[in-house]
């Protein structure tokens, strides 16, 4: 079934570039989205089943894959609206690159070996580069250049980490061994190797995950990419980065360096919170601020994983809910740019009068992303803090709380400024097409899911998360 999926994907991309017809490209992309949903349904039905020797459907991969399939439809829908004005060539490049990106990401989710995962992650960088460069502006060029360069440099570092993995067993095709077989040999390795391997992997994949050391380029990429693409980047692509680090973390969790890993993750998480809070206070551009909020949430995920115990559940739940909340906010950016014409915060204003449905999305989205209780993110924040209190890490708890308060202050002032205050100079920009409120339906659905999970977590979600934590120490 997976092979069928890959082949049809390649076929579709080729068709798009051959036929060069706008409606056909639309149908192909919708067909691809449906096929993707079928794939995730298939993966749900037979979990832990290995296909094509390098891909197993283990629970974390399947969970993140289903998030991608859920987000595929709205991304395409908003993509159609966004690229309505572009010429045919750009339109086709956009959709071709989008399909390749989604295929590579699905491959990364299901990979069962580090090198296979590494190859797909490298491939996603190339696919994303095309999408970021969609607007063909000077800033887009610079952002793409930086993104590709830093990502490949980071991934090269990650590859060194993987090679260190290989040194541990001395066998030639070590890197290609599946995770399960690797975990058996883990404890006779020299801990210094494991530490350096984990460090390299963490720094390498932090470019993808948007965690502290190499988060800088993802923020540039978000501020330049078209909103539906940045919705995908800031959610599913970051999940790929998280998955890579998470795989290595589970791999090494049974060895003696578990405390080292936890402390490094908390250290990186706190630093990303610090940087995010600092930049949020100075944010002048709306999409960059959302990118910093992703940095902050990924910092929380890192702290949650580093906390252990109830923190693991919190991390996975945070990843799932963050994907929904952040993507709905980025879809809303598409409409906001059409209504207000700019992302510079000083020129945005009285959004409530111009587009009430959108401002309602902004208000609910603000509370969901800031983990203020009706949002499910509060549950994961609660579990994270529960872990912190159980481990007695008071310093981490207090700094996290203070930084979160600053982040809440910064984001709510800017969001409320956009919605309520009247801008300094009324923008002479008249909205091009009539922005129909029906476009916000997808965003309300996603935010509704986030709020619903705060009150009632369905059993299937709880089971799959617990399954994905089965390898980790209790």
């Amino acid at each position, binding site marked *: 079934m997976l092979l069928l999926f890959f082949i049809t994907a390649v076929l579709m991309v080729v068709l798009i570039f051959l036929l060069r017809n706008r409606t056909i490209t639309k149908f192909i992309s919708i067909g691809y989205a449906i096929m993707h949903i079928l794939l995730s349904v298939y993966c749900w039905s037979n979990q832990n089943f290995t296909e094509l020797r390098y891909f197993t459907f283990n629970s974390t991969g399947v969970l993140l894959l289903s998030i991608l399939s859920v987000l595929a439809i709205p991304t395409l829908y908003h993509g159609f609206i966004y690229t309505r004005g572009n010429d045919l060539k750009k339109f086709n490049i956009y959709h071709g690159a989008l399909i390749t990106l989604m295929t590579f990401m699905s491959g990364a989710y299901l990979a069962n070996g580090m090198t296979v995962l590494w190859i797909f992650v490298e491939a996603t960088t190339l696919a994303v580069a095309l999408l970021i460069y969609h607007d063909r502006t000077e800033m887009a060029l610079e952002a793409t250049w930086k993104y590709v360069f830093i990502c490949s440099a980071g991934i090269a570092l990650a590859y060194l980490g993987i090679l260190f993995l290989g040194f541990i067993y001395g066998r030639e095709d070590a890197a290609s061994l599946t995770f399960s077989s690797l975990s058996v040999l883990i404890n006779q390795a020299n801990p210094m190797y494991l530490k350096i391997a984990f460090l390299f992997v963490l720094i390498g994949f932090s470019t993808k995950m948007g965690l502290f050391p190499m988060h800088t380029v993802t923020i540039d990429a978000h501020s330049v990419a078209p909103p539906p693409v940045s919705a995908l980047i800031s959610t599913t692509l970051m999940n790929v980065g998280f998955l890579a680090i998470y795989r290595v973390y589970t791999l090494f969790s049974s060895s003696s360096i578990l405390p080292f890993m936890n402390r490094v993750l908390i250290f990186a998480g706190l630093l990303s919170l610090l940087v995010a*809070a600092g930049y949020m206070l100075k944010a002048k551009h709306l999409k960059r601020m959302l990118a910093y909020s992703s940095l902050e949430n990924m910092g929380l995920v890192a702290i949650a994983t580093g906390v252990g115990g109830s923190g693991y559940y919190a991390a996975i739940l945070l990843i799932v809910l963050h994907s929904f909340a952040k993507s709905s906010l980025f879809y809303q950016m598409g409409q906001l740019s059409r209504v207000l014409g700019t992302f510079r915060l000083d020129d945005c204003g009285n959004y409530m009068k111009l587009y009430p449905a959108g401002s309602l999305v902004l208000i609910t989205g603000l509370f969901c992303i800031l983990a203020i209780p009706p949002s499910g993110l509060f549950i994961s924040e609660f579990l994270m803090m529960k872990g912190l209190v159980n481990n007695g890490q008071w310093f981490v708890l207090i700094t996290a709380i203070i930084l979160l308060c600053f982040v809440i202050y910064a984001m709510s002032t800017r969001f*409320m400024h956009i919605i309520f205050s009247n801008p300094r100079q009324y923008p002479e920009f008249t909205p091009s097409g009539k922005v129909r409120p029906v476009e916000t339906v997808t965003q309300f659905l996603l935010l509704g899911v986030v709020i619903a999970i705060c009150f009632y977590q369905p059993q299937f979600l709880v089971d799959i998360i617990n399954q994905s934590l089965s390898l980790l120490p209790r």
Partner: protein
Amino acid sequence: MSALFFLIIIFLTFLVFIVPKGYKHHYSLLVLISGVLLTSFWSLQVLSGNGEIIISTGVSGITSIPELIIDRLTAFFITVINITVLVGLLYSRGYLKQYYTIKNSLRFSIHYFSYLWLYLSMLMVVMIREGLPFLIVWEIMALSSFLLVIFDAEDTSVMKTGISYLIQMHAGMFFLLTAFLIVGKATGEMSFDSVAVYFSGHSNILLFILFFIGFGIKAGFMPLHTWLPQAHPAAPSHISGVMSGVMIKMGIYGILRILMSVHQDMISIAVIILVVSVLSGIIGIMMAIVQQDLKKILAYSSIENIGIIGMGIGLGALGMAKGNNTLAVLGFGGALLHVLNHSFFKSLLFFNAGSVYSVTHTRNTGQMGGLMKKMPYTSVLFLIGSLAICGLPPFNGFISEFIIYSGMFKSLSSSGIYQSIFIMGSIVALSLIGGLAIFCFTRAFGIVFLGQARSQRASAAEEVEKSMIFPQFITVGFIILIGVASSLFVRPVFKIVTTGFKIPETGLSDTSFISSLSGISVAGGIFVVLVAIILIYRKYHLSSKVVANGPTWGCGYTAPSPQQQYTSTSYSYNFNHLAKPVLQTKKIMDEIGENEIFPSGRSFRSESEDVYKKYLIDKPVDLVSGLLKRIAVMQTGRIQDYILYAFVFMLIVLLLTWINII
């Protein structure tokens, strides 16, 4: 089955978005009334019968819908919530008419939706006992009140206050969160009952302080109060009425619930509460006296009344610590009754301040005056409210202060040296607060309603429409009812306290104390009869005499102007002079330079900014945000710096592992 009704009401609140703009008010009134009926049915059932009702819905999942447990204390707080929230919504119809044309229908639906959810979340706060759902509902209360406060968010100062309010509520919630987590860590389960288990095993003082700070921020005790005087003037009046009448009482509810499960070192807890409440009471009312903004005066006087409630609780705790049952019952009983009374007269005062604002469009007392002639109903209601808040006899404020006083006096003779010093201190504090309250509210009422109109706005004022006046008669009815027939209300309150705090049934509730309450009613009755007799005789007497009108006695000065009247600053001048160390009143006038031969126009403004806000909130926040801004210099745009960060991060981690910190 009754849980089903509650879920239906919760569902109905979402439909307010669909209802057309004109009928949003009626729809939300309908939903509110059904909620009030349902919950008051439950609370009456509990108050009349004994024991508690448990309403649970059998839905599972990690955070399944929690059980709603209603015991006597919850039933009491439900009645407090129901009455004021209902009157608030009825009042808001007239008040919001002025915004009808300016704001689009989504703003109104958000407003009514968050009003209903403020009501529901307050109900659930008092009904839920489990840790996590309690925190969720606690934050929903803060969130819905935030949305209500920023109703007219067009002007940025309202927006800024709203956001700083949200942040302080969120910080308060984090305190509660940490406290519950500590309990969860020790006892494995997070709820109010497991707090009792924790208290029996461990030292109570630290955990109590955490809870006290968390609930104290919401209640508005002195050092944590800084959001209150900002949020209330910014909010529309019916919201600030409901918020300061009812919402800050949730903090008091939380403190009472925790106190019920305290086992050891109750004395130090009682001393902490007493000291903090005395501080809040005195400094709260002292700040109220020097404020110019009418709603700020009322906000600071809420802090004072919270201080009085806290004093009652502190004395109750002192009584329980020393095993002095009369002090315990009277202390807690007085505090609970003052919660009810305060919700009545404070919401009454805020509603009338709202009527004044909706007519004169200003809150600055310096521009009001002589409104009594133009707005008779509003001013009579404001007068009743200020009489009640000063605790003057025929009204309900006096009853609760009387209970707290008699608790203190009764226990004086039977208490040791330190306890009697504390009680004497609180007697002095309470009497001082009484005097200061009279000073404050004579100033507020006199300057705003009496004398001549000081500005064109005040002279052009006319009475608000009837729909804003009639709902307040419910509250006035309760104020007078509690004032006169006080034993009707005091007996159930004592029952709540004795069952809640497990204090053995003293002879108190039936013989001597109730007789003193009836004594008060008799004396009050005599007073009213006397006044009536004198007034009737006066009417008859003056009918036969020559009654003429003339200008006020100006000591010969023939052209008095309204500006010469005593303004709010001059009224509080000598007090301000006396209380200089506590209230730093700043005089803002740009000095005249030496070489300025013909100085240009000067303006003088004196304001007293909140000392606590400056030192406790503004300074640390600016310090940390300045630090954060300096740290965030990483996004330099150069690729080599980005690679450098990775390199440096790796070196730091390797270094730390080498000297094995990590």
